[in-house]
C-alpha cells in the first residue's frame, strides 16, 4: 500500500501544473458563488441537520466510534431531533467480543457517561458505511425504497453539520479499510447539494490525519470547514484506557466537546469563540479553519445556528371557525 502512495506522490509532482490550473478554476467558481450568495441571501433558516460519520472498522479504532457517538450526544443534547441526525458507524464497538464492558462505549477513562446508553439511533451501520452511500446521502440520490431515516431531507433553509472521523491522509479519508473518499468527491457532492439548494450553510468538521487537506478542494458556497491537523501532520488520540485496552477518544474531538459542554440550547457562543479555544499544545496538531466560502463573520455565527433546535414559533391567536355556522345564513 505504502509503495502505491509513494508512486502516486512521484506522479503527483509530474502533474503539479494540472493541479495549479484546477485551483484557478476553483477560485473563479468561488467568485461566482459569492455573487450567488449575494443574490439569494434572503432564504431564512428553519432547521438544523447533522451527518455524523465514523469510517473506521476494527477494535483498535474504538476511539473513532467514541468520537462520533460523543458528537451525536452533543448535537442531540443541544436539540437536534433524531429524525434530523444521520449517524453512520462503520463498526459496532458496544458488541465487540473484546469489549470488557459489553454494550457500552466510553469516551473517557472515568467512564461516567455511557455513550451507547439509550436512545442511540444508528442510521447506517457496519458495511453500509461506504463512500457510495455517503455520497448518495449527501446528494439525495438514494434508491426509491430507502427509509426516511437514511435520507437527508434538507432544503434551502437547512443548516447541515457534517462530522467525519477515521484514518486519512492527504486529500483522502479511508472508509472501512477497503476504499477511500477523496477531497474532490466531497467537494463535488457539496456542489451538487448547492445546485439543488439542499442546504443553506454547511459546517464541515473532520478529525483525521492531515484533515485540513480534506476541505482544500471545496468550492461550493456557504461552507465553513474545520479540520484537526494540517498537511503532513497527524491527529492524535487521547486517554489510553488500560481496561478497554485502546485509546478512547481523539484529542481534537475531545477538546471540541469540552467546549460544547458549556453550550446549551440558548447559548450565545459563536464559532469564533470555539476556534479561539483550539490549543495546539493540547491537541498536538494545528487545527485549520477555512472560512473563505462562508458568507457570514465567525464572530456573528452562533454555535446554535448549527447545533441547536432553531424553530420559528408563532402564536396562533384564534382558531379558524371551522364548523361554526355563519350567523347570517
Amino acid at each position, binding site marked *: 500500500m505504502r509503495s502505491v502512495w509513494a508512486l502516486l506522490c512521484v506522479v503527483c509532482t509530474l502533474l503539479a501544473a*494540472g493541479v495549479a490550473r484546477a485551483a484557478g478554476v476553483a477560485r473563479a467558481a468561488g467568485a461566482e458563488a459569492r455573487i450567488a450568495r449575494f443574490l439569494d441571501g434572503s432564504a431564512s433558516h428553519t432547521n438544523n441537520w447533522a451527518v455524523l460519520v465514523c469510517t473506521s472498522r476494527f477494535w483498535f479504532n474504538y476511539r473513532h466510534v467514541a468520537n462520533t457517538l460523543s458528537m451525536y450526544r452533543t448535537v442531540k443534547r443541544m436539540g437536534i431531533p433524531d429524525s434530523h441526525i444521520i449517524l453512520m458507524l462503520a463498526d459496532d464497538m458496544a458488541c465487540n467480543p473484546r469489549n470488557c464492558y459489553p454494550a457500552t462505549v466510553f469516551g473517557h477513562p472515568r467512564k461516567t457517561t455511557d455513550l451507547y446508553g439509550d436512545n442511540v439511533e444508528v442510521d447506517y451501520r457496519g458495511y453500509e458505511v461506504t463512500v457510495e452511500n455517503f455520497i448518495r446521502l449527501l446528494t439525495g440520490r438514494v434508491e426509491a425504497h430507502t427509509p426516511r431515516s437514511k435520507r437527508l431531507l434538507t432544503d434551502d433553509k437547512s443548516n447541515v453539520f457534517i462530522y467525519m472521523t477515521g484514518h486519512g491522509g492527504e486529500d483522502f479519508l479511508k472508509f472501512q479499510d477497503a476504499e477511500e473518499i477523496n477531497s474532490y468527491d466531497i467537494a463535488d457532492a457539496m456542489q451538487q447539494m448547492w445546485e439543488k439548494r439542499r442546504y443553506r450553510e454547511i459546517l464541515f468538521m473532520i478529525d483525521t490525519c492531515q484533515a485540513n487537506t480534506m476541505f482544500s478542494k471545496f468550492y461550493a458556497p456557504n461552507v465553513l470547514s474545520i479540520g484537526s491537523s494540517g498537511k503532513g501532520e497527524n491527529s492524535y488520540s487521547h486517554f489510553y484506557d488500560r481496561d478497554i485496552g485502546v485509546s478512547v477518544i481523539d484529542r481534537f474531538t475531545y477538546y471540541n466537546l469540552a467546549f460544547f459542554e458549556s453550550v446549551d440550547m440558548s447559548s450565545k457562543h459563536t464559532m469564533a469563540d470555539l476556534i479561539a479555544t483550539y490549543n495546539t499544545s493540547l491537541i498536538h496538531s494545528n487545527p485549520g479553519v477555512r472560512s473563505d466560502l462562508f458568507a457570514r463573520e465567525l464572530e456573528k455565527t452562533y454555535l446554535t445556528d448549527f447545533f441547536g433546535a432553531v424553530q420559528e414559533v408563532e402564536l396562533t391567536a384564534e382558531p379558524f371557525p371551522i364548523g361554526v355556522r355563519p350567523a347570517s345564513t
Partner: protein
Amino acid sequence: MALGARLRALLSRRSEPRTVISMHRERQVAVLSILVVLLVGLPLWWTTTRVYRADLPAAEVRRLAPARPLRLPLVFHVDAGALEARQIEQSARALVDAQRAPLAPGEWRVHYQVAVRPGPAPDAPGHYTLRLGAPAASAGRGIEVDPGRSATVLAPRAAAPDALSEAIAEIVAAEERAAHGAHSALKYAPEYAITLTLLNEDPVDGAAVDWDIEQALDAYLRPLARKMQPLTRLSLSSQVLHHAGPPPVAPLKTANGTRLTREMLPHFVNSPSWNFASVDPTSPMLNFVLFVPALAAQPMRIAGKPRAEAFLVSQWGGVSIANLPAGTLPGAKVVLSREDLQRHMGYFVAQLRTLIGIRSDVPLPQRAAGARPWVRVRQATDTGVSDWELDALLRQWLVHNRQTAITTLQSLVRLVESLPNMVVMDEIKTQVDQSLRALHAVDAALGRADYLGAFSSAAAASTLAEAAFFDPTMVSMLYFPDQHKLAIYMPYFLPVALPVLAAVKKIIAQWRRRKPAAAAAAAAPQESKKTN
C-alpha cells in the same frame, strides 16, 4: 500481407543461423505485431471503459430561462352587456398597468392578464363572478366576498362600471404583490402526511385522557382534505401517547396554574422522547399535538396575548394545549368529545393553512367599514378553505412547480457538463424530454385558462425533473485523478513498453543509417554522370 510473408519467412528460417538481417526482421515483426494489438485494443479499451452519457437536450433547457413575465389569465364574469364588459376590461387593464413598476433588468415576474366577460362563470379556477349590489344607505362603496368564486361589489348604479374595474384592478394588484412575497410555508408536495397526536403528560397522577378523534376528523379536517384533493393529498392519521413526560422546558408557576414564556416555545416540542417518527419515506410530515399537561401544571397558558393556548412551529406543525375542566381528579377518565375538540381543531386548521401556504387575504384583506371600499370576506367555515384561497394556492404552486422544473433541468444540465465522469443513462434523457413536454403543456393550458390542466402538467414537469436529478444512477464515478490511472496502467504497460520502445529506437536508427546509404547509392550515378 507483407507481415504474413515476413512471418512465414521468419518461421521457415527458424533453424537457420541468426544473422544481422534476420534479427532486424524479427525485431520489425515484433514491433509491428505489438502495434497491431494496440490498434485493435485501443478502440476496445475506449468503448469498454467509456462513461455512458446520453445526449441531453441542453440547448432547449437553456432556452427555458424566463426572460418575459409569466402571464396568468384571470377571467371575471360580470352581469353586463358585451360592450360594457369590454369597457370594464379596458379600464381595469389600464389601472393594472399603471400600478405596475417597470421591470428591472434580470427581474422575473408573474403578471395577471385580466379578461372581463359577460354572463355566468364556469365553476373553474381562474373564473370569478362579480355581481353588483346596492349598498346600504350608510355604508359606502364596498366588496363582499363569498367563499365560492364570487363577490358582490356594492356601489351606486351610476358608479357601477368604475367600481367593478377598480375592484378588479385591486384584486389583481394584490395577487401580483403576493406572488413575489417571501413564503415561509412548506414547499409543494403531492402528499402531506399529517399526524394528530394526543400527548398526555402524566396519566398516573393525572387523568387518563382519550379523544373522539374520528368524529372530529370527519367534522373538521376531512372536508378540507377533500377540498384540497385536486391539488394535493392530505393523509390524516392520529395517535395517542400516554406517559409522554414533561416538555424539555419547565413552565413558570403562577398563582393559578403555569405559564410558558415566548422563549420556551421553540424548545417545547423538540423532545427526543416524544416519538413523531413517520414511516413515509418522502412526504413532508406535519405534526399537530394536543398537549394535556399534568394536573399539577394546569391550567397552562402561554404568555403574551390573553388566553393564548396554541402556537405554530414553522415547517413542523402546531401545538395546542388542552386544559381539563377544573376539579378533574387524578385517575379520572376523560374523553374529549368532538365538541370539546372543535376549538383545538380550529387551531390546527388555522396552523395547517399557514403551514401549507393558504393565504387569508385572498382576494383582498378584510377592511373595516370606514375604509373605501370596505371589504368583508366570508370565511369558508364548512371546509376551511374558500375557492378564492384554493385558487391562489393553486396559482402559487403552479408557478413554483414550473420554476422548480426549469431550475432543476438547468441545474441538471450544468451538473452533467461539469462532471465528465458522471454516467447519464437513457432514462434520464427520457425524463428530461418528458419534463420539457410537460412544461410546454403548462403554457398551452394557461393559454386556454385551464388552470387544473396547467397545474397537473407543472406538477408532472417538476416531479420528472426532480426524478431525473435525483436518479440513483446519477452518481458521478468517484474521482479518479490522472495519477491513479497512471498507477493502474503502469504495471501492465511499463515492462512491455521499455523493450518495445528500445526496439523502435533501434529500427529508426537502422532505417536512418540505411537512408543516407541508399541516397548515396542513388546519388552516385548522377555524380558519375557529372564527371563524365
